[in-house]
């Protein structure tokens, strides 16, 4: 019943999900109600060099399942975006598709992780650390004075708290956003981060569904009626709805006239514009989306490099150099491999 109303709420996009093939037998026990619980990671045993042919075949089957379910979702998303006026959406690195497929892409990978035995040994250290963190996330949502009561602003704040708790932990100790995370050996750290990413995929799915329903009911918040904080928090959730580019595009279109009239922040609009246009056209305007290239943080491809400074000033953003330096401080510098 819950699943059904959920599907209806998400509309056509999730109805398509019913067409996806069932997960292969090796992965199926880890999926419950459309969500993946990574548990002991026995489902990736076949990814290691010394695995038996059976285990390897199991792993390959699960990878084929993930690939086909993501590819199918991409095709449908591309069709929908073409109908919305963007015929050449690249969607290259885009995590679309049913939640469990997207979650299954997050498993521990690290140059120093070379055998399943080693994974199991490091799991003994890493799993209680990740579970401890995740218990705090759940209890903070339960015990805080946010959420509930049908109050839009408080429910929104509760979703943002969950989003931030999970999302900020990925850099685990590498930058200011996650300062205070306990130091772990590299493989244990990779395990913890993979588990947080799996949990974060579920959270972004939940918060997007919530925001979508709320916006359908009450419209997009503006700074003059709802306040800066509420607008910022709603924008943050839209910015993180990468698995649902159609919804992101819808929000961008709602924000555009409001940004021109000064009803919502121009810089928030700029960030969302870039986030979406990279998906739809492969280029960004304001240089707000960065990547690591050869150990250096750089803007992803730009519409027009010579116009960047002008666009940023018009949107009330600091210089690109200052921005990239702030990302290094918040998330830690790019690793050399990156």
């Amino acid at each position, binding site marked *: 019943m819950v699943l059904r109303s959920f599907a209806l709420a998400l509309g056509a996009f999730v109805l398509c999900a019913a067409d996806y093939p069932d997960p292969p037998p090796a992965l199926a026990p880890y999926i419950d109600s459309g969500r993946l619980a990574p548990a002991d990671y026995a489902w990736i045993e076949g990814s290691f060099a010394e695995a038996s042919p059976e285990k390897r075949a199991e792993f390959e089957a699960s990878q084929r399942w993930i690939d086909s379910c993501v590819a199918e979702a991409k095709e449908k998303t591309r069709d929908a975006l073409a109908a919305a006026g963007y015929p050449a959406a690249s969607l290259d690195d885009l995590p679309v598709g049913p939640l469990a497929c997207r979650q299954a892409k997050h498993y521990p990978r690290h140059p120093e992780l070379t055998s399943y035995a080693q994974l199991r040994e490091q799991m003994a250290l890493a799993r209680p650390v990740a579970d401890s963190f995740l218990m705090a996330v*759940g209890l903070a949502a339960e015990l805080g004075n946010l959420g509930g009561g049908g109050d839009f602003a408080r429910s929104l704040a509760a979703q943002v708290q969950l989003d931030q708790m999970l999302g900020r932990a990925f850099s685990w100790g590498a930058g200011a956003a996650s300062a205070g*995370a306990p*130091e772990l050996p590299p493989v244990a750290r990779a395990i913890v981060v993979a588990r947080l990413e799996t949990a974060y995929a579920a959270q972004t799915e939940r918060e997007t569904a919530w925001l979508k329903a709320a916006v359908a009911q009450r419209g997009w918040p503006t700074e003059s009626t709802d306040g800066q904080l509420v607008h910022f928090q709603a924008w943050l959730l839209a910015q993180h709805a990468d698995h649902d580019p159609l919804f992101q595009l819808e929000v961008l279109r709602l924000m555009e006239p409001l940004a021109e009239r000064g009803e919502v922040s121009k810089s928030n609009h700029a960030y969302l514009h870039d986030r979406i246009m990279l998906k739809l056209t492969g280029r960004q305007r304001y240089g707000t989306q960065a990547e690591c290239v050869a150990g250096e943080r750089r803007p992803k491809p730009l519409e027009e490099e010579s116009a960047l400074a002008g666009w940023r000033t018009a949107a009330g953003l600091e210089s690109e150099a200052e921005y990239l330096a702030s990302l290094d401080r918040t998330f830690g510098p790019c690793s050399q491999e990156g």
Partner: protein
Amino acid sequence: MMLRYAGLCLAALCLCAADEPSPPPPETLAPYIAEGAFDPGDFAWMKGRFADADEPTKADVRAIDQWLVQCIESAKVGVRQELAARGYRDAKLETTLVGPLVCRQAFMRPNVDATDTYAVFAQEAAAAVPVAEAYLFAVRVAQEAGGPRGPGLAEQLLARPLAEQVVRTAVSWGEGMAAGAPELTPIAREIVRSRLMGEIAALDTANALWLKDIVAREGWPEVSAVGEKAADEAWLLVQHADHDPVFQLDALLLMEPLVAQREVSPRNFAYLYDRVMLKLAGKQRYATQFTCIDGKWGPQPIEDEAAVDRLRREAQMETLAENVARMDASYGRC
């Protein structure tokens, strides 16, 4: 903001120190103390508690224990003086932990079986510490991400207790609301709980200083001014300020006349009354304060047992039996 708390904290310590100097911590603990707080770190300062430690290391631990007793007992002298000045002589303060934060935190050391070797303990600590630190890291992010939704007192009160509440809940690791906690060995669980209790001491201390400052300037936060929920949270912070019985008593006296005006919940008043009176006289009136008796929750000593359920009803509370059942459900066995 953090710096300001630290400043207030230091000022408070200095005030105490003027009457009744608290002894300096032993050298062994120095690396674990920074900015008026104790971080148990790798727990290597526990080494002398194990049978296999050499004599000088065991002597270090005796020095720590001696310092803890002096630090807490000398603080009690000062607290008793202040309570006497308010008309409450001979305050019991039997199980009350007062004194500088550092002493109270160091007092929260894990109970370990002295027959285990330090090597075993150190191995357990290496696995347990990241589990505790991951939890506290999550709590700090929660606090930053769930901060006050506005500058008003009501919003600040609503946001304030989140961290101590989330940390407190985890003390019953594996039981009650923390039933979903990852399974740990008994020693690792004890180490995690000890770290969490040290953090609770730090949070309660900062919260009490924050509220004390507000109450001194604006009086007790009344229901009509901040709303019922925020007024509850102000009470919660005082209820958890056990390290500062003088502040608890002052708040109780401020709250008392407000109950009849419906500006303070009678239930909140009853809970704080019991908390304070157990410290001052060793008995409670409403049976709101529990203790662990043979692994089960039960009320601490009561003024008049026959009157308890009537008094509780007048304070709009459930019966004692119902309360015991609720404790069992929330916290599990103790």
